[in-house]
C-alpha cells in the first residue's frame, strides 16, 4: 500500500448555527492527484482553511506523512509541508513575481535581522540560493519572462500560475489548490492540466478543489464529494460519477433516477 501523505478524520467545524463540516475524513496517498468536489457552499474551502491552519477546527485529527499536527498556526502548517493557493487569487500585488516566489522560500530559510544588517556570509549565500531557486521555479512554471514585473500586472492565468509557483517554493509535500482553473479559458486549462501532471511527476501530491467536473474526471485519481459539510461519496472519478447521492446533490432528486451522466456545471 502506498504511503499516506494526508490523513484527516473526524473533522468538525461549526460557524454559529451552521455546521460547516461534520465528521469529514480524507486519506490521500503519495503521488495522487486528489479531487475535492461538491456543490457551492458544500464546505470545500472551509475544509481547506481548516487543513492549512487559517480556521481553527472544533474537532478532528490531522496527520501529514505520519506526523500528527493540530492546525492552528498557518505558518507551522506551511513549514510542515502543506502549501496552498486561494480561490480568489491572493498574490502580493505590489511585489515582483520573483519576489512573490522568494517569499515562498521563507519557511525553508533562516537568516534573521542581524544577518541581514551585517550581511553575513550566511545571509549572502542563503540570499543567493533563494534567488536562484525562485528563478528556477518561476522558469519551470513557465512565467520566467515576468520575473521582474509586479505581480498585479500579470495576465489572469499567469497570476494563477504564479500562485502555484509561490506555493511550490515552500517545498510542499502536499499542494492544495483551491479552484485553480476558475475563470480560465480552454487553452489555459489544458496548460494547467499539463502543469499539474508535471508537478505530480516531481513527487508532489496534489489536493484539488474544482468545479469543472470534466477537469476533475480526467485528472484525479480519487475524489471525495462534499455536500452540506458531509462526505457523501469517495472513490475513483468513474465510481463517484455514477453515485446516485452525488447526482442528487448536484442536480436534485428527480435526476437521481435518470441515466448516470454528470454534465459539467
Amino acid at each position: 500500500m502506498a504511503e499516506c501523505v494526508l490523513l484527516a478524520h473526524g473533522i468538525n467545524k461549526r460557524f454559529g448555527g451552521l455546521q460547516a463540516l461534520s465528521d469529514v475524513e480524507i486519506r490521500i496517498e503519495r503521488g495522487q492527484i486528489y479531487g475535492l468536489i461538491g456543490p457551492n457552499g458544500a464546505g470545500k474551502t472551509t475544509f481547506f482553511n481548516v487543513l492549512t491552519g487559517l480556521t481553527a477546527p472544533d474537532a478532528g485529527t490531522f496527520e501529514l506523512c505520519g506526523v500528527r499536527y493540530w492546525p492552528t498556526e498557518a505558518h507551522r502548517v506551511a513549514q510542515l509541508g502543506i502549501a496552498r493557493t486561494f480561490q480568489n487569487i491572493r498574490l502580493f500585488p505590489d511585489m515582483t513575481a520573483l519576489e512573490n516566489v522568494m517569499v515562498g522560500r521563507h519557511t525553508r530559510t533562516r537568516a534573521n535581522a542581524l544577518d541581514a544588517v551585517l550581511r553575513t556570509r550566511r545571509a549572502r549565500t542563503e540570499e543567493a540560493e533563494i534567488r536562484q531557486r525562485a528563478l528556477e521555479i518561476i522558469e519551470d512554471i513557465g512565467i520566467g519572462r515576468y520575473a521582474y514585473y509586479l505581480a498585479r500586472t500579470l495576465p489572469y492565468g499567469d497570476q494563477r500560475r504564479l500562485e502555484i509557483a509561490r506555493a511550490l517554493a515552500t517545498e510542499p509535500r502536499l499542494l492544495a489548490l483551491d479552484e485553480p482553473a476558475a475563470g480560465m479559458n480552454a487553452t489555459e486549462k489544458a496548460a494547467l492540466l499539463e502543469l499539474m501532471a508535471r508537478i505530480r511527476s516531481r513527487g508532489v501530491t496534489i489536493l484539488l478543489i474544482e468545479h469543472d467536473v470534466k477537469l476533475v474526471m480526467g485528472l484525479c485519481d480519487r475524489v471525495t464529494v462534499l455536500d452540506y459539510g458531509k462526505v457523501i461519496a469517495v472513490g475513483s472519478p468513474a465510481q463517484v460519477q455514477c453515485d446516485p447521492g452525488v447526482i442528487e446533490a448536484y442536480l436534485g432528486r428527480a435526476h437521481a433516477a435518470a441515466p448516470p451522466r454528470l454534465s459539467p456545471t
Partner: protein
Amino acid sequence: MGATATAEPSNHPAPPGGRTPPRVLGAMIALGAALIVLPWAIGAFGDAWVRALCFVTLYVMLALGLNIVVGFAGLLDLGYIAFYAVGAYTYALLASPHLTEHFPALAHAFPAGLHVSIWVTLPIGASLAAAFGILLGTPVLKLRGDYLAIVTLGFGEIIRIFLNNLNAPLNFTNGPSGITLIDPVRIGSFNLAHPGTVLGMHPSSLVLYYYLLVAVALLAILVCVRLQDSRLGRAWMALREDEVAARAMGVNVRNVKLLAFSLGATFGGVAGGLFAAFQGFVSPESFSLNESIIVLSMIVLGGLGHVPGVVLGAVMLALLPEALRHTAVPLQDALFGRVLIDAEVLRMLLYGLATVGIMLYRPRGLWPAPEHGMRRAFGRVAAANGEAAKAVSGHG
C-alpha cells in the same frame, strides 16, 4: 515567448553582493562630498541653517524608522514619536544632574553626578525604545488599518502624558518644565560642544554635530536598505500586501510584526538620544501628536516604503519651516509692504496644500518605488519593458 525568456540573460539583475556599478559609485562619492561641504557652504548664511540641517538628519532617522513600520510592514502607526521621547528621556536622565538632584540616594552613589557616556546611553535608549515597541506591538497584533492607528495614537499620547506628569510625588521627569543641563556628546575626551581646534580648523560645535548626525543617518539608511533587501524585508512586504497569504506561505506574522515595531522603535530611540544631546534640553512638548503626524507626512509625501523617497520627504518637510522663517516675512514685506500671513500659519497651509496635491497627482509619493519593480537591477529598467526584450530576441 519561451525563446524570449531564455534569450535574454541580461534581463536578470546582477546577484546581490556583486560589484556596485561605476555610475552609482560615482553618484555616491559626489553625494558624500556634498554632505561634507554642505555645512560650511550653508553656514555662511548663519548658524541657524546648520542647526536646521541637524534637525533634518534627525527627521531622516525618524522617517526611516517609521518607514519600517508603515512603509515596509504596512502597520499604520500614529504614535511613533513616543519612541523618540523614550530615547530622548533615557539620555536626558542618564546624562544630566536631574536624577541626582532629586534622589539623594543616587547622589550619594554618584557624587560627581550621573554623566553616563553616550556610547552607553544610546544603546540603552535604543533597547528601551525597542522594548516599548514590543509593548505597543503585542496588544495590537490582530489590529489593522484604522483600528491600529487609533491604538498607536493613544499609545503616543500616553507616553507624552506620563512624561508630563511624572514629577510628583517622585520627580522623575520634571514634568512640563523638562530636563535641562544635559551633557553634550563626548567622544573620548573630545567634547562636541567645545571643539576648539580640529585638524588646524575651527569648526563650530554645530558643524561637528552635523557630521555626527549625518554619519548616524547614513548608517540608518544602510540598515534600512539591507533590511528591505532580505528575507525579513520580504516577509514584511508580504505582510503588508496580504496577511493571510503571508501566513499561508509560512511567515510567522506575530514575530515579524513585533520585529517591525521594535526595529522601527530602535531608530526612534537612537534619534531621540542624539536629539537630547544635541539640544541639551528635553520637554514633553517636543513629542506631541503633531510630530508623529509630521513624520508620517514625510514618508507619505516622499514615497511609502521606498528608502530614497522617504529621505527626500524628510529633507523637504524638515527644511520647509526653516526656509519659510527666512523668506516668508521679508518676501511679504517686499511685495505688500506688510506681513499678511505669519510664517507658522503659512507652513501649515503649505503642508495642507502639499498633502492634497500629493493625493491628487502623485498618490504613491514624490519618489515611489519603480513601477516595474526592477529594484535591484540598476540601469536595466528598460529591459523589463518588453520592447528591449523583443529587441534582444530579435538580434539573437
